[in-house]
């Protein structure tokens, strides 16, 4: 039955990617196309006194220049897609985010003018002639400092720069009482640093207004074309949606940063109507550093209490979350519903309270970045429990096993209800950790660690995580403040010859949907993989879509495809029954044909599809055609989990830390294509380990991003990693037809704390009882920690 599902089918899209034939937004050329460059603020906080574009407009090749004042007041700014109100019921502060600034710039990179010319170089050259007179003001960049009295204000009417505050879980008094009764409390102040997403393809957008059809087309490097169209049409430009086509062609990675609707997308569309020419904007790497929505940036204090038996009795967490200067599309959801709700982790903690203060700062917007909130939650829990093990002198693996929630499959046993508003679907947590311990050779490692004599320190770090994926039930996210539904659509169109075109609302930008989805269709329909094509990313061909993020495409988009396949096969059975002169109840479908049970009478899929379109001999009352759409809205999130172990070796003289081994055992439910899942895990690990050891955006106190290039921002490279040792357990999701949970973010969620814990473990074993080292763990920081 399963010829493809569960097999490492080679990715069908890779041929075009590897041979340079991928078609990205910047590859698209149109007759008469002109090019835009956006002049951006060099200051974090300044008032614009005047903008003089006269010299620039006379420069070679310049077609038009627009500033904030040229854009009519009727055009709104970029909207936020998620509303999280204050604890006291006050509405979230949502100051306008204009397409181009009119009066005040609020972060380095804020758009000031768009210069359009016959070439990108001419546009860029001309932009240097635009004379902007600024009055520079003090800036604030740290989310905690921003909330203090007297901090420079990012927006008028937002006291203490507070966008909102939010709390979840048990009452604080109950948590405090439980902590007071604990025999040991581990407390940690830490920073989850700011990350630059660094997708390989820089953002790009083409706006084209076609006068003949009175229709707009936006090509854009997006993770969700339909959502971009909805936000841009309904909330920014006030355009009729049916007159706007949004295409997200091949997209070279997003990691979250291409979910959001950006000002540049609406700008090229609006400008193309003004000048009646197609306009292309492609950002350079430097702009990507400044303006692709960043990730993480939490400043946290957390306390975890244990009883005499080592059982966790309570958790209290407070986080200042940096929103940047404006609220990006999903920004409010990240530190709240994607972070606070995950603080149960894999543990039976009976009392949990999480308190979040979200502040504006004079920095680029912060939003979802691979893992989005769950890496922050995992970092919080896993740093605390590993540190607690060191402080209490107990084994960190034992301590976890003791606190794990007992197994439940979500069918026989109910899903686990947490203290923080979720019900886990299915879980069996001890096996992932036990398997990882076996793979690492735990006892032998501890012996080796004790008997080290080479001037190095060895450390082992653990991380056992849970995440919420496949977001999610629309009604649930709606009640949590989402301004969009989070279902997915799929259309399965059987062509007369039995070939199948599948239109998916998910969007592939590295995930391999064209392969994984085709494997599902081919297996379920009993046809060859080559007979299936997955079409995605074009709002004119796909009915609707919520796009790809939050490890949701297979669980939600894949399930929508299954629904449509079921409808196709149900109708196909009626046609087959007619052709076989049998009752459809007596038919079984296997291997691409319907057979009358217990006989050799059968009719193939191709004959049925042809009959559907040439309905001469056809069931009475049945519509011709074989083409079904479905919308799938799941009943719950999915909850993958796993155990990661890092082994590090530290040079005592220099603090240089080498990651020697990394073991990851993940449970992502059923697996359709093991090779693709392995690849997703590998990529996630590289990003998670990158955060622990290499990466981090640094703003100085005037709000300048001082490591805004690859010379200064350290991206991990292949030789920074050992060969990853990965394995899986399988606990199927009980509530979607594929039993899948999602794998895109797991690697980035689990790995970061494992690495930091390993370094802390090495230092403790070497006699340095250090509680925390700020990420990234540079040799200098590790060396400094050893000097105390």
């Amino acid at each position, binding site marked *: 039955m399963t010829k493809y599902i569960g097999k490492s089918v080679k990715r069908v899209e890779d041929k075009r990617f590897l041979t340079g034939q991928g078609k990205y937004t910047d590859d698209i050329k149109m007759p008469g196309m002109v090019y835009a460059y956006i002049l951006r603020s*060099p*200051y974090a906080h300044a008032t614009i006194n005047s903008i003089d574009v006269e010299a620039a407009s006379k420069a070679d090749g310049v077609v038009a220049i627009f500033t904030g004042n040229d854009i009519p007041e009727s055009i709104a700014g970029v909207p936020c897609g998620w509303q999280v109100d204050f604890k006291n019921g006050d509405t979230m502060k949502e100051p306008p985010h204009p397409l181009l600034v009119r009066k005040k710039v609020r972060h*380095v990179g804020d758009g000031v003018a768009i210069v359009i010319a016959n070439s990108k170089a001419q546009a860029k050259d001309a932009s*240097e002639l635009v004379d902007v007179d600024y009055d*520079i003001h003090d800036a604030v960049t740290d989310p905690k400092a921003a909330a203090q009295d007297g901090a420079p204000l990012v927006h008028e009417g937002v006291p203490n720069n507070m966008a909102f505050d939010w709390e979840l879980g048990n009452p604080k008094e109950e948590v405090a009482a439980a902590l007071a009764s604990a025999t040991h409390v581990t407390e940690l102040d830490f920073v989850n640093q700011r990350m630059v997403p660094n997708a390989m393809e820089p953002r790009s957008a083409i706006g084209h207004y076609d006068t003949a059809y009175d229709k707009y087309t936006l090509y854009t490097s997006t993770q969700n074309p339909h959502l971009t169209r909805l936000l841009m049409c309904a909330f920014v430009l006030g355009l009729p949606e049916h007159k706007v086509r949004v295409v997200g062609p091949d997209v070279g990675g997003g990691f979250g940063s291409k979910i959001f609707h950006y000002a540049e997308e609406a700008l090229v569309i609006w400008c193309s109507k003004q000048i009646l020419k197609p306009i292309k904007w492609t950002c350079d790497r*430097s702009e990507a*550093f*400044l303006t692709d929505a960043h990730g993480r940036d939490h400043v946290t204090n957390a306390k975890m209490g244990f009883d005499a038996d080592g059982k966790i009795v309570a958790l209290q967490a407070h986080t200042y979350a940096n929103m940047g200067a404006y609220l990006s599309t999903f920004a409010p959801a990240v530190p709240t519903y994607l972070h606070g709700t995950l603080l149960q982790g894999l543990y039976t903690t009976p009392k949990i309270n999480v308190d979040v203060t979200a502040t504006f700062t004079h920095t680029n917007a912060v939003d979802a970045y691979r893992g989005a909130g769950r890496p922050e939650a995992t970092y919080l829990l896993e740093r605390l429990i590993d540190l607690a093990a060191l402080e209490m002198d107990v084994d960190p693996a034992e301590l976890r096993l003791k606190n794990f929630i007992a197994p439940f499959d979500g069918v026989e046993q109910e899903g686990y209800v947490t203290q923080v508003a979720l019900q886990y679907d299915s879980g069996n947590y001890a096996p992932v950790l036990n398997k990882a311990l076996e793979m690492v050779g735990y006892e032998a490692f501890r012996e080796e660690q004790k008997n080290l004599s080479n001037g190095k320190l060895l450390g082992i770090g653990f991380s056992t995580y849970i995440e919420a994926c496949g977001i999610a039930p629309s009604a649930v996210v709606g009640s949590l403040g989402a301004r969009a539904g989070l279902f997915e659509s799929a259309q399965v169109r059987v062509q007369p010859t039995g070939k199948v075109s599948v239109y998916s609302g998910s969007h592939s930008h590295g995930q391999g949907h064209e392969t994984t989805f085709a494997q599902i269709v081919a297996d379920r329909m009993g046809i060859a993989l080559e007979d299936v094509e997955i079409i995605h990313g074009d709002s004119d061909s796909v009915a609707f879509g919520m796009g790809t993020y939050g490890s949701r495409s297979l669980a939600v988009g894949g399930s929508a495809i299954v629904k449509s396949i079921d409808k196709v096969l149900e109708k196909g059975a009626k046609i087959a029954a007619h052709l076989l002169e049998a009752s459809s109840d007596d038919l079984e479908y296997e291997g691409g044909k319907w057979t009358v049970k217990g006989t050799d009478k059968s009719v193939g899929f191709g004959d049925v599809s042809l009959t559907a379109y040439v309905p001469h001999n056809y069931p009475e009352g049945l519509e011709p055609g074989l083409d079904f759409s479905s919308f799938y809205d799941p009943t719950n999130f999915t909850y993958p989990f796993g155990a990661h172990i890092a082994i590090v070796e530290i040079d005592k003289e220099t603090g240089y830390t080498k990651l020697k081994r990394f073991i990851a055992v993940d449970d992502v439910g059923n697996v359709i294509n093991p090779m693709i899942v392995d690849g997703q895990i590998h990529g996630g690990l590289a990003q998670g380990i990158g955060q622990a050891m290499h990466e981090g955006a640094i703003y*100085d106190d*005037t709000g*300048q*991003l*001082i*490591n*805004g*290039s690859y*010379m*200064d921002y350290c991206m991990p490279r292949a030789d920074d990693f050992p060969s990853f040792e990965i394995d899986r357990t399988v606990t199927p999701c009980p509530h979607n037809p594929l039993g899948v949970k999602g794998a895109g973010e797991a690697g980035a969620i689990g790995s970061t704390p494992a690495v930091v814990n390993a370094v802390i473990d090495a230092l403790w074993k070497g006699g340095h009882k250090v509680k925390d080292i700020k990420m990234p763990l540079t040799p200098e920081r590790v060396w400094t920690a050893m000097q105390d």
Partner: protein
Amino acid sequence: MRVKGKHEFNIPKQRLWEYLMDVEVLAKITPGISKLESLGEDHFKTHSQIKLGPVKSTFTGEMQVTNKQEPSSFQINMEQLSKIGNAHVVVQMNLEDLEEGKSALEFDGKANLSGVIARTGQRVLSGVANAITKDVFKALEEHIEEDNTLA
């Protein structure tokens, strides 16, 4: 970016002060400065070519000498603009007499950078700034020596 340092000269602070207040001397000793035009008392327009780490550009801007306490201290305020970013610099200069007719110049200030120069190679910039400062003082020493020889 903080700029901070100290340099000793073989002349008393009153004479050092006179050199430092001489526009022509300043223009001669500062690396990269191609032109220094007076805009009024202690207020100049500057044109310079500066190489900052990996990037090189022409800066134009203004420089002002303020808070003059002859011969002990003054402040330099500079705003330098270029295609690759701008620099706003405030430096406090303190002159102090030492033994044997020598003197010391101590400087401490802040350079706020923006644009490409702020986000590219800033971690190497304080090294560059120190090197530039050293060049200025070396040039000043040489100028003083030359001046004395001529006298």
